[in-house]
């Protein structure tokens, strides 16, 4: 068979295969072009998940007629200054996107540059390039892509449902929008019920405002600000508290010089940073920007530009792990605020606003034995002077709290017996529940110490169900899961001890020979000293194998091969032997679990307060070893809302 030069159209279709995978990739390329053109608002319209139509309009610089004609040619770009691939400051640089799209779809570009008297437009139809003709557009650029992949039917088959493609487009736009808070983004079309609109944010908190628009205000409330710089590499952004996590890693946004990337090194560093505050199958939410000299990073790894390569990956990794860990320690015992908020949602009976009345007793525990009389529509009741029918009042769970404690908070002490004395034998049911609860009121015997209340976790007031400590703070109340909290404290202590005294190793009678790829062998041997410090001693055993001579004694009789392979993977993935540390920490965690105060143990007030103080003093005590919160806080303001007082 003779060798032939491929036609331009075929070359473009092959290239398109790499750049344009699905509608969302088109949207990404077009939006990036608009940003490169300096747009301040970008409007995206799609139909049928982008399969039939994608239109991206911007108010950027536009193109002259001559540039427009060139723009749809392969390898034509205005962006590479002197062809320096090492100095990329724009999102695009390959000069590939528009010709690729033109090769596989019907592409129309209308544009107007200030130098031109009027706008121009051009059409490329499955690779067939039309003439540049005058257009009525008088500002910016509008790119319209219809019938994607009509020219390459094989590709069409691989597209997902309209709904899935629409969702992918939304993801792309959100991702880019996160990095460009000063640009307004809108996304609409018949394929989406709810158009998206992210107005331009300004001012010093623009970024945070945009994050709120895109990810919701919950994340903003539960995020730690990250800021760090080392050797010209700057890391900024926000990372979620460990108690605010997700089952997948989709909400992890990384930007390198404003370019959204999905990079193994960065993902690995993130996992490392959260390793001991999150369970393995939970994922933190982050929005992080890495800014560095373009010479220090290669974005030309793959046509889709989602992978990057750092000159000094150790530096980047170290910076990120260090900055996040520091933030985690500073956030200390801070736990997710949604915990408290979710609790409030539960407490709100049937979600009905009590002020509007019509209360049907949706909350089983607090349900009155008889419905409230219709006339009693204002539960802004004054407990000491019950209005209406005294019997109804007496039977409701809203009995007045007897007396007025110094602090205004008291613990219920009356029992069903008192109620019996009133002679309402037929309606004692609501009291049954009260009787069964196990409020330990010993803490209440102590005078409330205003000094204690000033602490972040407040003064212990009671222990409920032998596991929950209720503490009073100056402006709310805190509920602590005593088992989870203590487990975390013990774990942190054990980890410190482990770090302080080093790890004992058990020598092996018969060295375990582990066969590995030669690269892995070399990686392991490079780190042999570091591994030995953790109790794993290995040495070279001919080509493609290592011999393990000692293992960490803490692990006991363990799967040595599995361990060594995991570690080799870790070093390859993220150039650090996290898994060995993790395993050791895991043993520490298991021991912590056994060594901690079980739920079900009554604590004396002094013990409760001591636990609260130790939590405040221990970094990372806001969540247990599985990422669940160890405590939640209810603000007085929230509680008042609950009772319709606000």
């Amino acid at each position, binding site marked *: 068979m003779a060798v032939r030069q491929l036609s331009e159209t075929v070359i473009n279709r092959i290239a398109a295969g790499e750049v344009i995978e699905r509608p969302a990739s088109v949207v990404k390329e077009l939006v990036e072009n608009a940003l490169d053109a300096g747009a301040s608002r970008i409007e995206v319209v799609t139909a049928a998940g982008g399969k039939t139509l994608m239109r991206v309009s911007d108010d950027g610089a536009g193109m002259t007629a001559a540039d427009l004609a060139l723009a749809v040619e392969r390898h034509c770009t205005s962006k590479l200054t002197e062809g320096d691939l090492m100095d990329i400051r724009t999102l695009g640089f390959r000069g590939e996107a528009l010709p690729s799209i033109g090769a596989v779809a019907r592409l129309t570009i209308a544009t107007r540059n200030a130098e031109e008297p009027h706008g121009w437009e051009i059409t490329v139809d499955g690779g067939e390039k039309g003439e540049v003709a005058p257009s009525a557009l008088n500002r910016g650029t509008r790119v319209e892509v219809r019938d994607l992949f009509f020219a390459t039917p094989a590709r069409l088959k691989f597209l997902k449902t309209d709904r899935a493609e629409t969702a992918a487009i939304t993801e792309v736009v959100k991702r880019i929008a996160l990095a460009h808070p000063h640009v307004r983004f809108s996304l609409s079309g018949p394929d989406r019920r709810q158009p998206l609109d992210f107005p331009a944010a300004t001012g010093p908190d623009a970024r945070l405002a945009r994050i709120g628009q895109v990810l919701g205000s919950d994340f903003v409330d539960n995020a730690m600000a990250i800021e760090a710089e080392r050797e010209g590499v700057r890391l900024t952004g926000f990372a979620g508290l460990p108690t605010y996590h997700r089952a997948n890693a989709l909400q992890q946004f990384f930007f390198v010089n404003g370019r959204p990337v999905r990079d193994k090194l960065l993902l690995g560093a993130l996992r490392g940073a959260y390793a001991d505050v999150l369970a393995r199958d939970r994922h933190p939410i982050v929005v992080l920007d890495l800014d560095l000299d373009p010479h220090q990073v290669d974005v030309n790894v793959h046509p889709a530009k989602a992978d990057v390569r750092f000159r000094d990956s150790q530096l980047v990794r170290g910076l990120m792990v260090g900055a996040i860990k520091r933030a985690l320690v500073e956030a200390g015992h801070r736990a997710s605020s949604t915990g408290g908020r979710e609790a409030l949602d539960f407490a709100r009976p049937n979600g009905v606003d009590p002020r509007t009345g019509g209360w049907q007793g949706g909350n089983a525990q607090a349900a009155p034995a008889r419905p409230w009389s219709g006339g009693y529509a204002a539960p802004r009741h004054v407990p000491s002077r019950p209005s209406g029918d005294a019997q109804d009042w007496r039977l409701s769970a809203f009995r007045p709290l007897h007396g007025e404690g110094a602090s205004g908070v008291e613990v219920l002490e009356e029992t069903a017996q008192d109620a019996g004395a009133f002679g309402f034998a037929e309606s004692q049911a609501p009291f049954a529940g009260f009787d069964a609860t196990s409020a330990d009121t010993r803490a209440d015997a102590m005078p409330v110490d205003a000094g204690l209340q000033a602490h972040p976790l407040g003064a212990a007031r009671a222990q409920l169900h032998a596991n929950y400590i209720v503490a009073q703070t100056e402006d709310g109340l805190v509920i602590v899961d005593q088992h989870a909290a203590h487990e975390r404290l013990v774990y942190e202590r054990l980890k410190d001890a482990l770090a302080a005294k080093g790890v*004992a190793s058990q020598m092996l009678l018969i060295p375990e020979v582990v066969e590995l790829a030669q690269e892995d062998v070399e990686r392991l041997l490079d780190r042999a000293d570091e591994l030995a410090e953790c109790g794993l001693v290995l040495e070279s055993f001919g080509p493609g194998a290592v011999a393990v001579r000692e293992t960490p004694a803490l692990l006991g009789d363990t*799967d040595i091969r599995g361990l060594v392979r995991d570690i080799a993977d870790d070093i390859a993935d993220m150039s650090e032997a996290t898994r060995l540390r993790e395993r050791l920490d895991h043993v520490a965690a298991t021991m912590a679990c056994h060594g901690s105060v079980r739920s079900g143990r009554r604590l004396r007030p002094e013990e409760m307060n001591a636990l609260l103080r130790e939590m405040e003093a221990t970094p990372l005590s806001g969540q247990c070893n599985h990422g669940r919160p160890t405590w939640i806080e209810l603000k007085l303001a929230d509680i008042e809302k609950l009772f319709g007082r606000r």
Partner: protein
Amino acid sequence: MKATLERTDLLKSLTHVHRVVERRNTIPILSNVLIRADGGELRLKATDLDLEISETVPALVEAPGATTVPAHMLYEIVRKLPEGSQVVMETSSDQATLEIRAGRSRFALQMLPESDFPDLTAGDFSHSFEVAAADFRKLIDRTQFAISTEETRYYLNGIYFHTVESPNGARFRAVATDGHRLAQAEVAAPGGAVGMPGIIVPRKTVGEIQKLLDEPEANVAIELSETKIRLTTGPVVLTSKLIDGTFPDYGRVIPQGNDKELQVERAEFEKAVDRVSTISSERGRAVKLAMSEGRMVLTVNNPDSGSATEELVVDYDAEPIEIGFNSRYLLDIANQLTSETAIFRLADAGSPTLVQNSGADDTLYVLMPMRV
């Protein structure tokens, strides 16, 4: 099927047999025990597909036949029947349930057809010999603790039995190791055992054999092939698959030239180790042994809680040496030794140490030190 038998006999056999049955099974028939009544006896059989135990009990068989019923439940029932009672087992006329009667108690257990019951006994055996139950028990008792529980090195999950030649004739030897320590015990090889293939008997089988060999005077008939072992003692027949793997060349790790010999009173040593290790809170904590002329100092350091030291008078006149061991391993071995004096043969802090009873040389232990 209809048979009558003594509760005591039935309970004894069921006790042996039902233990094989796993508590949780995905194949229903494996939860059952097979009961076959024929010619003046009842045969009970249970299996987990790797291990099978069957046993016969004398019975008055009125109608021969066979069936299967849930093993643990049958065992519980028979256990709770009054002592000295007679048990009647009879299948219902529709062959759906097995009725068990004793005194005024009456149970009906759902049956599964005996034809579905798996059979492990197929295959020929290449070697067969007899050994005293006490000897075989000893081999197991002395080595079982060192079996590895780590499943990726499956070939260490059992005891390795084989024969070796020695100046005092052929020996029947058992070895187990978890890679940290090794235990070896041997007896004179019975005729017929010489030349047998080396076999690895799985941990669960070892445990069951140990429980069956409770009458030291008895003899055990052993038949084996490369893949299976069968052991017969009295009315019990145990058949088990062997671990299909190669046991490591353990001979290389048994030190030959350890010249620093130490003799210590075994019970005293055990107590001392136990006392000082109280201070350590986690597993894998090291005990440091410092030997010098005539004495041994045991030390445990735990930065969390403190330290412990104890001094023992020992028989030692080699160069001073310090060496660390996992305290649990030391206790295990001290427990195994039977003589009043234990002998340690040491080389240095990074090499295997040999531990033996004084006088006898039919058991030996090798222990790897820890580095702290």
